[in-house]
């Protein structure tokens, strides 16, 4: 499975790997046709670069240069390394579903009897044997975004989770993406999460690397629908290896009076991009989203969020924080569209960046497009260093400089972490933030 990429032209190099991989990609007939179209769309556009407005801060052509060949299915060595990695990233009390190098790993997953109203299948299973409508939905993504198109073309596996109407899932689900490749490679996953009417659930996604993993590229795409009156708590933790790329998107649709509470934290990956689109499809829904970037070295972390207020009486809150050390670069692009009918929309967006070094960079780009006239919308941004007067107070009480800084950084991200309702998940995130701070000290 070692494809030698002799050609430097990105499109053609990937093309070779797509051709080579085709036999490993699940689905035939209409599915294969959707993949082909998506791949053509990607090939036409190539890797996005800075002259494309949406990608102006994250020039993949310069940062990434090429798409690596598809990772081999994990062998026993890869699986045992992945298992070791899970020990550090496991969260007590959750049902774990594990993807290793982009392939579902049943032996590492908890497939024991689920609560009533809960079903999980793999993407492969659904694309090979599932019903056509679901297959269509899984691959119907927008081909105008080249990276989503590439994911559509190449998605190897993922999880398809469905929660029936009225089901209150007590146990959080933890989908863990473990990279364990022995040679540089790319992994493509796509998952679907459907939460029925009046249902509620907690979904955690982690991206991690096994020890000794080579440079890799993780491409993920998540499709979420939250039914009327349903509530989803969503956590997304990017703790990839520091040589890795993580290019991901989410497409979320919210029913009437649905609630989405989402928290994301990026502390890993050399370059990461997360592109969630949240569409309000029913009135009275609410989204609270909190994001945290904890980055250092030359890390580059981009969150590009699109909040689509398509219907009236919905509320959205976006608070995005970044702690940026060394020469790292944090990007937040937040677009809010309020469609002509979406009266009484209440949308607010706030970005706060903490720069720990003179060479750290934060780019914030708010875009508000408001077509309705009776709405409350706002955005704000702050960027600065740690407050000297607070630092002095702590130092005057005996805290050495780094510890004083750590306490203030903790407080800065702590406000976001407080938004996580579940105690053990909150503890898990606090521990992850702590690891980052300790590595810095």
């Amino acid at each position, binding site marked *: 499975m070692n494809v030698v990429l002799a050609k430097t032209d990105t499109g053609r190099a990937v093309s070779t790997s797509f051709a080579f991989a085709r036999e490993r990609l699940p689905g035939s007939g209409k599915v294969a046709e959707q993949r082909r179209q998506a791949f053509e769309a990607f090939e036409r556009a190539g890797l996005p670069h800075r002259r494309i407005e949406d990608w102006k801060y994250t020039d993949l052509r310069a940062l990434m240069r090429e798409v690596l060949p598809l990772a081999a299915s994990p062998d026993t060595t890869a699986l045992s390394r992945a298992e070791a990695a899970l020990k550090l990233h496991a969260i007590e009390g959750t049902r774990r579903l594990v993807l290793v190098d982009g392939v579902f790993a049943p032996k590492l997953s908890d497939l024991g009897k689920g609560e009533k109203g809960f079903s999980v299948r793999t993407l492969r299973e659904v694309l090979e044997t599932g019903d056509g409508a679901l297959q269509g939905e899984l691959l119907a993504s927008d081909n105008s975004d080249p990276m989503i198109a590439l994911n559509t073309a190449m998605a190897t596996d993922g999880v398809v989770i469905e929660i029936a109407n009225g089901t209150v899932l007590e146990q959080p689900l933890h989908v863990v993406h473990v990279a364990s490749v022995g040679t540089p490679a790319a992994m493509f996953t796509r998952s679907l999460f459907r939460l029925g009417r009046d249902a509620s659930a907690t979904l955690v996604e982690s991206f991690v690397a096994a020890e000794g993993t080579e440079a890799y590229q993780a491409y993920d795409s998540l499709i979420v629908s939250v039914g009327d009156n349903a509530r989803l708590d969503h956590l997304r933790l990017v703790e990839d290896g520091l040589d890795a790329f993580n290019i991901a998107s989410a497409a979320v649709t919210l029913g009437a009076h649905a609630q989405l509470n989402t928290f994301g934290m990026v502390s890993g990956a050399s370059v990461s991009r997360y592109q969630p689109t949240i569409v309000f499809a029913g009135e009275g829904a609410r989204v609270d989203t909190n994001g945290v970037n904890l980055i250092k070295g030359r890390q580059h972390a981009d969150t590009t969020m699109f909040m689509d207020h398509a219907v009236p009486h919905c509320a959205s809150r976006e608070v995005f924080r970044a702690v940026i050390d060394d020469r790292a670069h944090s990007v937040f692009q937040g677009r809010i569209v309020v469609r002509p009918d979406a009266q009484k929309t209440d949308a607010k967006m706030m970005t706060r960046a903490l720069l720990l070094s003179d060479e750290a960079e934060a780019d914030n780009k708010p875009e508000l497009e408001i077509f309705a006239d009776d709405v409350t919308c706002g955005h704000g941004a702050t960027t600065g260093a740690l*407050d*000297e*007067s*607070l630092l*002095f*107070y*702590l*130092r*005057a*009480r*005996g*805290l*050495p*400089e780094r*510890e*004083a800084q750590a*306490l*203030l950084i*903790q*407080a*800065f991200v*702590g*406000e976001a972490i407080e938004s996580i309702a579940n105690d053990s998940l909150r503890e898990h995130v606090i521990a992850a933030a702590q690891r980052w701070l300790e590595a810095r000290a």
Partner: protein
Amino acid sequence: MALLEVKDLQVRVEDREILHGLSLTVNPGEVHAIMGPNGSGKSTLSHVIAGKPGYEVTGGQILFRGEDLLEMEPDERAAKGVFLAFQYPVEIPGVATMNFLRTALNAQRKARGESEYSTPDFLKKVREVSKSLNIPQDMLKRGVNVGFSGGEKKRNEILQMALFEPSLCILDEMDSGLDIDALRIAADGVNALRSLERAMVVITHYQRLLNYIVPDYVHVMAKGSVVKTGGKELALQLEESGYAQFEDA
């Protein structure tokens, strides 16, 4: 040996000299009051002793038990036993008071090579002290000084003083913004900490505070140096005559 010796201290902020050759000696067990008009350099002195950035010492020295204090980082000074009760204690949202107290106390103990406090011992100690200062327990769960009244902030400073057991306490305008009742509680807290080993430097604009915390020495500062030193009766004289006589000098 003197606890604190300030010798001919000259300090600048940007291009302006604030202290021009200030000297002060404080022995263990003594309480010194430093009085003076606004702008005389009282707060600058307290900041320089604690190690606040932004001041340039252009001459003189500060010795603490014979050691050069100016060579030490602010946290080292704290661990050695220097404590500054701030005139305006800062609010630190997101850092719970209890967590802050424990982190700071253990950092100081660690720096001195002492063992860290166990959680039960720490809690017991905090409870005792906070009770005597009339600080409700739920205040300790909130962010440091967040939403505290002026009196609560000052009591929180004294709580820290009691916990950290410093050998030199500098109280910078402790009375500012306090009403009579709050002042009495704060002063009682300070008086409870007076001991033969511990010295205090009480910086104040008004004589009123000195009715509650009775000093052994009173120094009058004007224009960046000590212009007069006397006993506690000096404070009362100042109350009548004012500072003008020193400022005109």
